């Protein structure tokens, strides 16, 4: 009995050791993975907007279409614009919900936010950097030590009921582009604005328009104006007096990529082959 136990014990230890080694290697790399991705999530509400690719037509005129639910909801906090006069210290809109879709040719971005009243001067905008140069989130304000680029602004106002394609490089330089590529449509119901902006992913105007390539991240920021009038008839928020967000990220998702599965299958095959050869070699060695 002890003889048999003596014989088995080392085998048990060897087996446990092998299994432990495999599991440790696995656990270590899994831990690494979560450490890398968990950080931004815990400190912020969202850091990016991801636009999945949809088949069929984009809901460019319908902020209530069911297909919007296939996009992940991103949520960004808003602040009053304080960077530059004329500033405001309190803005109506405090949070902005964003969803986005693309069909390989056009991108559609849905902004959704609470606003207690529908007013003709209610407005919303999306901002991107243009080209490779960094641009300050406040209208591409000039920076002292960094050469900045322009921003591309997609603007919508309730009473105009259309999208406007604009550029700016600092406050006071806002200009409407010659070629208008942006469409926008707003719908107000139950104290909530839903505004859809649409544009081709790529335009020919590299110096003026943000270019969106699938799979890549670009910077995005938002602004909202509450067009309500106060007792004296003045607009509550207008021009530089608005709710703004910081720069976040936007990505139009690339078509699904299955290559990871092929590589995994190949690796499994190689590992099996290695095992087979190893054991065969060991068995030969033992009998010899």
């Amino acid at each position, binding site marked *: 009995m002890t003889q048999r136990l003596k014989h088995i014990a080392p085998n048990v230890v060897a087996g446990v050791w092998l*299994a432990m080694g495999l599991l440790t290697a696995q656990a270590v790399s899994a831990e690494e993975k979560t450490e890398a991705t968990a950080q931004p999530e815990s400190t912020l509400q969202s850091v990016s907007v991801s636009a999945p690719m949809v088949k069929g037509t984009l809901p460019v005129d319908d902020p209530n279409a069911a297909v919007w639910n296939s996009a992940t909801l991103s949520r960004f906090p808003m602040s009053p614009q304080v960077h530059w006069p004329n500033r405001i210290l309190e803005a109506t809109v405090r949070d902005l919900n964003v969803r986005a879709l693309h069909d390989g040719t056009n991108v559609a971005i849905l902004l959704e936010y609470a606003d207690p009243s529908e007013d003709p001067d209610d407005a919303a905008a999306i901002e991107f950097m243009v080209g490779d140069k960094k641009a300050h989130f406040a209208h591409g304000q000039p920076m002292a030590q960094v050469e900045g680029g322009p921003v591309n602004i997609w603007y919508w106002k309730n009473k105009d009921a259309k999208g406007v394609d604009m550029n700016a490089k600092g406050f006071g330089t806002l200009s409407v582009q010659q070629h208008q590529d942006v469409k926008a449509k707003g719908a107000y119901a139950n104290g909530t604005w839903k505004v859809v902006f649409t544009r081709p992913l790529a335009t020919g105007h590299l110096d003026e328009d943000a270019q969106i390539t699938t799979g890549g991240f670009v910077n995005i920021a938002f602004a909202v104006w509450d067009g309500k009038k106060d007792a004296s008839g003045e607009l509550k928020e207008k021009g530089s007096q608005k709710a703004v967000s*910081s720069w976040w990220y936007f990505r139009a998702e690339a078509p699904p990529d299955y290559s990871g599965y092929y590589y995994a299958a190949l690796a*499994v095959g190689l590992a099996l082959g290695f095992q087979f050869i190893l054991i065969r070699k060991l068995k030969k060695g033992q009998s010899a």
Partner: protein
Amino acid sequence: MGGSLLKPVILIGIVYAILKFIVPNIPGSAPLPSSLIFLYLMLTTSGIVIFATLSGESKDAFWGPIQRFLTGENIGGLQVLRYGVLLLFPLIVGWQTYNSTATSDAPPSENRTIHPAPPGEYTGLSNPVAKTPDSIQQGKGFYAAFCSPCHGGNFDGKGPAARGFNPPPANFSDPTTIAMLQESYLFWRIKKGGVGLPIEGMPWKSAMPRWEVELPDEWIWKIIMGEYDGAHQSPRTWE
């Protein structure tokens, strides 16, 4: 017999426990990244293998059981465990490969320097305003009007206008902000604002106004005094 394998297992277990639970608790130390722990465990393992294969006898005692386990000869009830290992190994390799080749959903990571070096002309400036209770009080008044909407009435960076900004407004009561800096540094940051930062400070993300266009220098120096006093911090000095 089993000892030649059992000892290494125990040794590796002890090394892991030391690296994971004891080292982080040594004063002045920090938790080790798991990749480093893994590296140390690999080093320990190779040391053990070298030691165990020094003589033919110890080599047999070390490899023998592993060989018998892998080939499955005379291991009785352990066959199930052996098949488990043989199945688990290719699956883990496949899983690892999938994880490392699959495209990442995470946006680019950003390493922003929070307190980059100021331009030369600002280093060593001293506050020209006499530190009197009156100037401090005035400075606190200016702070309340111009700074507190973002940096907070309690100097904690949690003003009502702060919520949307990333990076968030500095928390002056935190000992790692103005307590580490000289008054001249604050003068630069208030005067030139977020757009005055060098590239490593990512000026395009900062909402800090360029106060030089709105406030005279004297007000800025008084604000600095009020800020330190209100946040119960002192400026860093050369002494």
